[in-house]
């Protein structure tokens, strides 16, 4: 019995809980690594058997091949471009629907959650019905309903419903008059970014100054004023310095259509990888004698088309565009051209995702509000605050602490559910990935890429939400 009573004496290693813990961790780690290694070698051996012509290795060279297919919406894409570029277009589409969906679903969910706990009987019952019905139906069924059920009832293109000068509604989509940044507006965009940064810094400094002085108030007004000042200054600077690139060139086909672009290699042919297309430039079609035949503006992807122009167009001239161009949709040929177009696929997907996720968010918000002790409500009533003010100042800030973690899950669900776009023809990244798999046969590579993309979206969202959660969570002793 030689155990000393020294406080730092440790038991022998086989009874030392710390050592045992470390050993178990190491053992478990070896187990996990071995399992991962087994799965990996299993996959590579099977792949080698299937792909024995390419040596059984995963080759990534297919990403540079020509895609050959069109994508119906998203950033400008031509079939001559590569699979990688097609995937990027799909990625942009997913981001577009996810960001819009998250914002709208939050708004809808918070309002419905508040409606659920409201004293107004009709309002709370309507919210209840909405939540229960939407939560009980599969999302795919809802998406198909929105798409096929809704576009079937919209008017055909020829009889499109019109808001004069503002928008058109038809079963080909919603077309809205919209301002776009042009070539000369691009530098202005950087001024705006700078203005936003400057405004944020000014607001922060002002707030810090006020806090030091012990005065109430915030820096918001000053920050917004700074932003507008910088924006206006930037507008005039950009406008006066506006110039089209020197290497500007055009391709004219069939006398009435083609592309206007900045020719990087000077060969007069538009190559999407190296030449840059010029959008929203006013152009005039001239005939052989130099007489103007028609005027138009190039589209968002630099392409132009003169509808109903007389034949014999041989050359083009252009003028420098203003920084912002107000694009109005008009019916030409089979479709509407111009303006901001929201296709039925996009609208149906957005509606389906927002309505579905909104129902879940409503329940989370309701749980959060119910988690705030009743004493808070009574105290705020005693102080004289009405329901709306109570909610805004007292209850919701406390409810946020309960709401944020499950809300993160719902946001991630929305992003992942956007992959159902494939069912209604919206070209999101999963859809484009599937087409690439079918056309090129590279299944494993594309699945890895798609999984990695969704994983990074989710990790970034989680990261941000966890940071926000740490800021609002209850700090107990």
């Amino acid at each position, binding site marked *: 019995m030689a155990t000393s009573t020294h406080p730092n004496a440790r038991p022998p290693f086989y009874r030392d809980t710390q050592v045992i813990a470390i050993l178990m961790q190491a053992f478990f780690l070896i187990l996990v690594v071995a399992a991962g290694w087994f799965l990996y070698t299993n996959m590579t051996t099977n792949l080698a058997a299937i792909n024995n012509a390419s040596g059984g290795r995963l080759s990534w060279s*297919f990403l540079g091949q020509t895609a050959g297919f069109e994508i119906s919406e998203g950033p400008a894409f031509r079939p001559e471009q590569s699979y990688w570029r097609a995937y990027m277009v799909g990625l942009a589409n997913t981001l577009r629907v996810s960001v819009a969906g998250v914002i709208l679903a939050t708004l809808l969910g918070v309002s419905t959650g508040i409606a659920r706990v409201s004293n107004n009987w009709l309002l709370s019952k309507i919210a209840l019905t909405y939540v229960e019905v939407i939560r009980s139906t599969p999302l795919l069924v809802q998406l198909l309903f929105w798409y096929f059920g809704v576009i079937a009832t919209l008017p055909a293109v020829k009889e499109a419903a019109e808001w004069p000068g503002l928008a058109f509604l038809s079963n080909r989509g919603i077309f809205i008059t919209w301002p776009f940044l042009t070539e000369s507006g691009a530098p202005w965009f950087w001024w705006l970014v700078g203005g936003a940064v400057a405004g944020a810094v000014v607001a922060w400094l002002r707030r810090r100054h006020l806090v030091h002085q012990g005065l109430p108030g915030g820096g918001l007004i000053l920050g917004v004023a700074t932003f507008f000042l910088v924006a206006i200054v930037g507008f005039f600077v950009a406008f006066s310095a506006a110039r089209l690139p020197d290497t500007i060139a055009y391709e004219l086909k069939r006398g009435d259509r083609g592309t206007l672009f900045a020719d990087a290699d000077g060969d007069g042919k538009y190559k999407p990888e190296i030449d840059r297309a010029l959008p929203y430039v006013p152009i005039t079609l001239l005939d052989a004698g130099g007489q103007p035949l028609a005027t138009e503006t190039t589209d968002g992807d630099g392409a132009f088309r003169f509808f109903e122009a007389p034949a014999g167009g041989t050359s083009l001239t252009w003028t420098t565009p203003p920084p912002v161009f107000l694009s109005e949709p008009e019916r030409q040929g089979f479709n509407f051209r111009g303006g901001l177009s929201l296709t039925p696929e996009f609208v149906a997907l957005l509606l389906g995702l927002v309505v579905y996720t909104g129902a879940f968010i409503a329940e989370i918000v309701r749980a959060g509000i119910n988690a705030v002790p009743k004493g808070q409500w009574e105290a705020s009533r005693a102080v004289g605050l009405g329901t709306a003010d109570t909610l805004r100042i007292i209850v919701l800030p406390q409810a946020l602490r309960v709401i944020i973690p499950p809300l993160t899950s719902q946001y991630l669900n929305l992003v992942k559910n956007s992959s159902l776009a494939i069912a209604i023809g919206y070209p999101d990244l999963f859809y484009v990935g599937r087409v690439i798999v079918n056309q090129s046969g590279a299944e494993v590579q594309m699945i890895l890429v798609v999984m990695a993309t969704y994983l990074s979206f989710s990790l970034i969202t989680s990261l941000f939400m966890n940071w926000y959660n740490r800021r609002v969570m209850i700090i107990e002793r």
Partner: protein
Amino acid sequence: MNRRFSMMGAALLIIAIIYSACAAPAAAPAAAPAVTEAATSVATAPEAAPAAEVAAPVAQTGSILDTVKERGKLVCGVNNQVPGFGVVDQDGNYAGFDIDFCKAVAAAVLGDATAVEYKYANSNDRFTLVKTGEIDVLFRNSTWTTTRDSAEVGMEWMPVNFYDGQGMMVRKDSGITTIEDMDGATICVQSGTTTELNLADYFRTRGLAFEPVVFEDNDKTFTAYDEGRCDGYTTDKSGLVSTQTKMTVPADHMILAETMSKEPLAGAVAQGDPAWADAVRWVVFGLIQAEESGVTAANVQEMLASEDPTIKRLLGVEGELGSKLGLPNDFMVKVLEQVGNYGEIWNRSLGPDTPFNLPRDLNDQWTNGGLLYSPPFR
């Protein structure tokens, strides 16, 4: 509290076990007939194996021909949304031009045209399913192209069983008479198909613009066109004819005269299995040769006594051609009795008695000016 949790956990476990047991037996009864005739030691394995084999795609080291014989059933990848080629009725029975080819292969290998499990393969999945071994053979109106033949997509293509071309369907009241009128139109097309690529090529070379609306399966594609989402709907002309019958008002639509591309439709198996590829290939050739030689389902028994050496070799009366392919020597007799020759398959699904009444044109025997030409059976 603890006791309640553990009882709930036990109940969930029991439910899970019962459910998984109930999900398996769909495969077990099919193995029963094979068990009764196979040897004992082999019998115990297929009973447990089919449930796993149909579900687990493993790279086969032996030939698929042996796997199919052992399994006693052919897994055939088909379409279920194209009337005339591959469609399923409300009782779950598959019928169509491509389906009959599946039946022919099953009759040749297993002696029974009904020993087929049909698996729907959508346009994006179909080749992956073949490559991983989940389906043995694909008869799903798929076009033979260089990329699909190469190691990249990894298919081995059977003889063309339908020479088709891509066409465009529009509404009669749209005022469109040729594809040149469709500049800027919206066109519904199915994703992952040669149709999608050909459409882009055809329009691009003519300097025409179009807006695609793309879906994964045929049903959604033509429904969107029918509802007015698109001005045009494009797929193989045979698909257009058969889908027209599914429109709400078929008479409102018409198929434009232009053929936008060559679409040779053929069956496909996985690359790297020459025994299986040869077996399926010669079943298809056998159907074509039978029509050329005039052997039908009705007269095959009489033809066994024929003096024509080609027919004698085709039906296995003379020579060992079947055995050389790994099939029973009289495989064509079984095929013709149960399915018929190429002409009978055509008439059953696409002939004058059907709503389609497609003209034979290129799909006729070489003796009649078409492209069907079987290498000799010798």
